[in-house]
């Protein structure tokens, strides 16, 4: 119960922080829209399979950029203060939850922007939304945890990319397959097992983050 209260409090803090600065979200939105603009001007006519690949690449890079700041935007003294007030697992879980929301918003906006400039080849909107949701969860867990590690180093942005991209590839491959089905590119029957695999990977990663984060915060 205490943990839930702490998570709620920390989530509120993240939201207030974001609302006051509006720095991250506006930066990310600019990033997404300028990428999509470049995509549009260079392709003009986008085939559904290219659309699928481009969409996930844009979402992937936008997610990394959105999450890399998770542990560096507040200075270390203030983080030390939080750790004295709350349980470290509450910190990582609240960051993960906040980032899930952020990434979901981000990917929905990318979808909207993509459909405005490059058309919307999605046939099964429900399945595509499910892929977006599962993607947000998987990306959020992996990237948040890696951001916690790389935030300790000086060159955190570079380290973030090096550490997290290989780790996220299995999730990304499954997601591209799922969304290819939503786009009608692939007539595959095994959607359920794909979703189960994604959920299983998420569960393993969140369990690991939960267990290992207490070793990360102390310095």
């Amino acid at each position, binding site marked *: 119960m205490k943990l839930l209260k702490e998570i709620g409090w920390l989530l509120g803090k993240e939201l207030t922080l974001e609302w006051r600065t509006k720095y991250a979200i506006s930066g990310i939105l600019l990033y997404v829209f300028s990428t999509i603009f470049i995509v549009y001007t260079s392709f003009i006519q986008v085939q559904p399979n290219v659309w699928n690949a481009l969409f996930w690449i844009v979402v992937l890079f936008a997610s990394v950029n959105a999450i890399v700041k998770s542990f560096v935007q507040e200075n270390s003294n203030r983080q030390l203060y939080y750790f004295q007030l709350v349980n470290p697992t509450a910190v990582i879980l609240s960051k993960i939850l906040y980032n899930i929301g952020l990434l979901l918003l981000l990917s929905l906006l990318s979808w909207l922007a993509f459909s405005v400039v490059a058309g919307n080849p999605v046939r099964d909107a429900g399945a595509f939304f499910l892929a977006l949701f599962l993607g947000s969860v998987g990306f959020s867990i992996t990237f948040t945890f890696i951001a916690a*590690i790389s935030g300790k180093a000086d060159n955190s942005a570079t380290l973030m990319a090096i550490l997290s991209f*290989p*780790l996220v590839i*299995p999730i990304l491959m499954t997601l591209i397959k799922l969304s290819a089905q939503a786009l009608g590119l692939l007539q595959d029957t095994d959607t359920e097992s794909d979703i189960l695999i994604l959920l*299983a990977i998420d569960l393993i990663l969140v369990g690991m983050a939960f267990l*290992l984060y207490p070793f990360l915060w102390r310095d």
Partner: protein
Amino acid sequence: MILQYWWKILSVVLLLYTFIAGMVVPLKPGILEVRPSSGGTGELLQLQVTGYNTDYTRGAEGLRAWLKMKEDLALAAEKTEVLSERQLELTFRIPDYLPANQKVQDFTLIVDDAHNGASVLPSAVFITQDSVAPAKGQALWPSDEIGRLHEKEQMTFPFRNILSETIRNTYFHVPLWLGMVLIFLGSVVFSIRYLRGFREADDQKAVALTTVGILYGILGLVTGAIWAKNTWGAYWSWDVKQNMTAIALLIYFAYFVLRNSFEDPERKARLGAVYNIFAFATLIPLIYVIPRMTDSLHPGAGGNPAFGSQDLDNTMRMVFYPAVIGWTLFGYWMASLYYRAQQLSSKMWERHTV
């Protein structure tokens, strides 16, 4: 001393056994090639069979051959003639209709004699029929019974058409992968121990094991690429398992990049240990789950038969399992040497600086 070093001696003995037995034990006689590989219904089909490791002249007495479609549908050869030790001529009279629902049906060739034992070539001959009439075919098909086949009793490895001699790579490629996973597992155990006690030695051991694990990974990739060149035709064919293992190696290269980006040794060790555990957790879906989802050229996926069921017979098991244990123990030995060398060099470094 023997008690202390028994596992090192064991690893050397097992690896020597793997190299000697894996290279020396001959392959079972098999069928290398059948020509022509296609025919039509109602024909008198003459097949030139090239054997491998065979001595048909010594088994000519009582040599039998069948074209088999499925479990109890087989056509016996009308005439068998031994041309040389490795050449056979088989004559089959193909009926006018096939008991099959498709125009083209593939047949498995089985050759059996007392000297060479039974050998099988799957999809050896494709027979085309002009009109499809399974009922007529069923009536015409003689359904010759495949009599008792001769089992070879000697120490031999099974012959697989596309693998042939490269089947010996099973003792190097596969055990290296299994050894890699077991060594990474050991490294994770030391990382966990480090996080429980914060002893620097545990972290150093984890690093040594990870280094050897990467070496095994690279060796596994290289032996796999050589094997792929011989069987699939290219060193790298963007097979899922190849991609996934390349990514797994990237994850572990990133481990060293991470360690190098911290100056403080305590921080380096702690964050390295955390990442090592996290990376191993993602390695499991990477190596074992994802390749099962998508088609792969590897055995056991995409309609390819798994090794365990057909090829890994008892003779091969007698080499394969010792090979896995031998490579793993050898890896641990290498890691312990690397660890001690690192310890010594850091000691020397301290002495120089003071």
